[in-house]
């Protein structure tokens, strides 16, 4: 079991790392496309070796520890960020269980974890420290302000994230991600059953991953680099990696919770071979994740950044009451409509 888990971990991490390096390239292409530029095209054919060049450059940079920083915590902060970003991946089911030579293998690193959704919530709440500590330990005013703003933003939107999740748990009656997918196969995708919950979860995912229009912590015109102003080389790369890994996990979690994970409607009525169905399921899941990621990038290059008071007002005065109303709506819907 340990060996099986380790193999899955290595496969998932390698996939995510490759995906991240090409997502960076993709984001540069998309931004170029949206702004009518050409984008990176010099490194290798079509610029495909660009990620390799980026990683090499970051690796060979000097590791600068500012003299006023708290060295130990300055080092720890990116490690916390990347640990949290990767750990969420452990419970995501990437496909239905496949049967190889009579033995069933689940396509999640940890399956049948009956606190599933709560594990995501717990990790998200710990993830705040990476950014808070990075801001505090750098010894720079920009970093401190960026870190503080960012952590206040993240905890505010965590509430909305949690409220959006509660409606999913109410509809499915389970916390296990595999169970949530099964419930959606039986009763329809949650995006139809809880559209408001989906909107809330989507918006707070943007805030939790610090993506535009919620990237206040690194608002360049006022805060330089925000919490990672004083970071260089691989430690900076870890924050960068964590941001993109968070984007992947957020997309995967949203696909599982609201878009039925690896489920494709009406596909099982065609009478296909089960193994082919499983492969198509994995592909469908990848496609859903990719659609969300494209949406993340599209929004980034289309919508301007919020002002900080607008951001806090949106979180506390609009989304939080909406989340509570959403719970009431879902409760009534479940009691009167779905019975």
């Amino acid at each position: 079991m340990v060996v099986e888990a380790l193999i899955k971990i290595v496969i998932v991490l390698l996939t995510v790392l490759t995906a991240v390096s090409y997502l960076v390239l993709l984001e540069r292409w998309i931004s170029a496309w949206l702004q009518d530029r050409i984008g990176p095209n010099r490194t290798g054919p079509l610029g495909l070796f660009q990620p390799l060049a980026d990683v090499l450059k970051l690796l060979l940079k000097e590791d600068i520890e500012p003299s006023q920083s708290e060295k130990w915590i300055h080092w720890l902060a990116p490690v916390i960020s990347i640990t949290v970003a990767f750990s969420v991946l452990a419970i995501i089911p990437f496909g239905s269980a496949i049967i190889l030579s009579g033995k069933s293998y689940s396509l999640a690193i940890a399956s049948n974890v009956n606190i599933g959704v709560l594990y995501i919530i717990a990790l998200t709440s710990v993830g705040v420290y990476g950014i808070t500590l990075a801001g505090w330990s750098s010894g720079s005013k920009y970093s401190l302000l960026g870190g503080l703003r960012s952590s206040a933003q993240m905890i505010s939107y965590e509430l909305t994230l949690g409220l959006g999740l509660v409606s999913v748990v109410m509809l499915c009656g389970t916390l296990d991600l595999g169970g949530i997918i099964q419930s959606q196969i039986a009763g329809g995708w949650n995006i139809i059953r809880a559209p408001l919950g989906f909107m809330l979860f989507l918006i707070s995912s943007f805030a939790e991953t610090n993506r535009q229009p919620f990237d206040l912590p690194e608002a360049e015109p006022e805060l330089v680099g925000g919490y990672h102003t004083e970071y260089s080389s691989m430690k900076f790369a870890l924050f960068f990696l964590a941001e993109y890994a968070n984007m992947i996990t957020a997309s995967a979690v949203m696909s599982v919770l609201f878009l039925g994970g690896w489920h494709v409607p009406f596909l099982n009525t065609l009478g296909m071979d089960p193994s082919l169905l499983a492969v198509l399921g994995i592909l469908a899941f990848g496609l859903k994740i990719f659609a969300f990621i494209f949406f993340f990038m599209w929004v980034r290059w289309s919508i301007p950044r919020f002002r900080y008071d607008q951001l806090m007002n949106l979180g506390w005065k609009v989304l939080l009451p909406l989340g509570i109303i959403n719970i009431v709506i879902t409760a009534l819907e479940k009691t009167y409509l779905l019975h």
Partner: protein
Amino acid sequence: MLTNYIPLALMMMVAIGFGVIMANLSKWIGPRKPSREKLSVYESGMVPIGTTHERVSVKYYIVAMLFIIFDIEIVFLYPWAVTFDKIGAFALGEMFLFIGLLFIGYIYVVKKGALEWD
């Protein structure tokens, strides 16, 4: 039961190991030419003024405090949501009372202007 959690622990350990190695990698293979100017903190190219750790606004404290309160509310919602089908109408009314009471608290907080960022 508990064996289901072993892969989670493994994943965390692998992630921590990855982070630790990566955070040290540049230190091991990168160049190292420190100078006083390079190691001073960035302040738009000027010589840094004063200390960094000034006292910050009390609003962050209010946000963190309110976050704890509503986070506990949401934690109470999960067991209710999981057992929604089994515990029936009584629990539904009970939860509406709970949410209603906290909503009164929320209205108080908003009316007192604790969430204004001016």
